């Protein structure tokens, strides 16, 4: 990557992003096409070294937005740049700078953590030995014993799998980490460990982090700024303190969220 691009102050920039999904169903001989506007005209600027939280109810467009940033989905309109490089025109260069942890830990479940990490390291051109040493170090930091590295992923808990997913993302030293609900389904201790680790990664690796979450406390604890998304649109984008002050009537982020989206996030989660 060229130094000029890396030195850009903006790690991520989205300009007027739109994504509409079409779904075809049949009613007898008739084809019915329904369109869902998943993301509607999103503008976003994330300075380098910032942790930005995206907070929104289920189906609000968080994951779609992250997928577009991760070069996995092509926007219908608008542009996304990572360190000044367009994600469509410089796909390969952007992919070298980013890594993503998704809500579902995407692993070959029959393979051990070590085998999965070796595969990931190979894809990103990291020497296997270095990758294994680094992964061991990261996992120890996340409170996972070394012995777990040789256990098939399917025999590990969801929390342990998610920790390995984070270790895998860090192996490639990404300068922009896209974390799509990384702590969903983790127990409080694991959640806390992962959160501490995210803060540590930002401090030690000079990484910019974009995290989508359902967890208000997590967002408040980790994020420099929080963008609240509802029905594909950002309805607010500010620091946690300002969001609480302006929208939460000083009753907390949840109150602000409820006022901005007109929904109760906790009830929505419970209904799933």
């Amino acid at each position, binding site marked *: 990557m060229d130094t000029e691009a890396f030195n850009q102050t903006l790690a991520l920039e989205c300009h007027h992003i739109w994504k509409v999904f079409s779904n075809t169903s049949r009613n007898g001989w008739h084809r019915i096409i329904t369109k869902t506007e998943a993301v509607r005209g999103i503008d976003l600027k994330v300075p380098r070294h910032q942790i930005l939280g995206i907070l929104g109810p289920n189906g609000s467009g968080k994951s779609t937005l992250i997928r577009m940033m991760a070069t996995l*989905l092509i926007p219908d309109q608008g542009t996304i740049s990572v360190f000044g490089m367009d994600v469509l025109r410089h796909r390969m260069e952007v*992919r070298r700078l980013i890594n993503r942890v998704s809500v579902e830990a*995407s692993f070959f479940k029959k393979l051990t953590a070590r*085998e999965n990490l070796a595969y990931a390291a190979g*894809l990103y051109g990291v*020497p296997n030995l270095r990758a294994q040493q680094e992964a061991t170090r990261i996992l120890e930091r996340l409170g996972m014993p070394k012995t777990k590295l040789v256990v098939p992923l399917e025999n590990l808990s969801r929390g342990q799998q998610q920790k390995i997913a984070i270790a895998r993302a860090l192996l490639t030293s990404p300068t922009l980490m896209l974390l799509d609900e990384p702590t969903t389904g983790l127990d409080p201790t694991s959640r806390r460990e992962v959160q501490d680790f995210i803060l540590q990664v930002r401090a030690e690796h000079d990484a910019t982090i974009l995290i989508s979450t359902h967890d208000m406390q997590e967002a408040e604890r980790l994020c420099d700024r929080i963008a609240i998304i509802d029905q594909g649109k950002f309805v607010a984008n500010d620091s946690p303190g300002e969001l609480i002050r302006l929208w939460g009537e000083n009753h907390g982020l949840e109150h602000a969220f409820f006022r901005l989206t007109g929904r109760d996030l906790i009830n929505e989660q419970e209904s799933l």
Partner: protein
Amino acid sequence: MGREARALGSIVRRNFHLIRRYLGWEVVFLFYNIVNTLTIGLIGLSLPPSQRAKTVVYLAIGALLWNFLSILFQEIANAVSWERWEGTIEYSFMAPIHRLTYLFGVCLYAVLYGLLRTMIVLLAIMFFFHVSIRHADWMGALLVLFGSVLPFIGLGLMGAVLPLISTERGAQATQIIQGVLLLVSGVYYPVSVLPMWLRWFSYASPATYTLQASRAAILQGRSMGSVVGVSLELMLSGFILVPLGLWIFTSAEQWAMHRGTLKRNG
């Protein structure tokens, strides 16, 4: 270049690791493969003694080559379905490597795995049927086999596109294609026995030429020179089918990234 080579190696290694983890199934599939091949070969033994050896070899060639070519097609065509099923497709596809490297890794593994399994079945056949083929031109047969790898990779790449286009039905469609190839390529009979309308399909299948030329080399002991032409034609068709398959694959990937179908399971 080094980065791409490392990625290629990791894809091949990953697949061999998966074989180890699904070893029970591998043993079962291999056992079925061997039994199936022997069963087909045994049909030859039911014939009058003068025709036995030749028929057994004729059928065994069909079974072995189909074993290899179908593995090649299946492994490549199912690469996408497999990653989808495991839930790793997005991770693999957002890696900073060329799609060509990814697909070449899948193909390299398919060739190695196909050869390994076919060699084991061949050993079983040699142990079970004591037929001697004194005049066989093995080098010629190998040349034909080598020539057929590329067109089958091309077909596999086209097959791999289907799960990208249709999440639910793509994998099913690849099985249908494989079935049609089995029917029309003259695996266990000459294509001349097929009804005329089906024979047109046999002309389009690279397996038809592979089987005919291999049988000519092994059963009739035709010289290597006589199969060079077919082998070159097969390779030439591969030089068309592989880039075509790659082009179709990358176009389908773009389409899937527009439609958002890369991710869905099922």
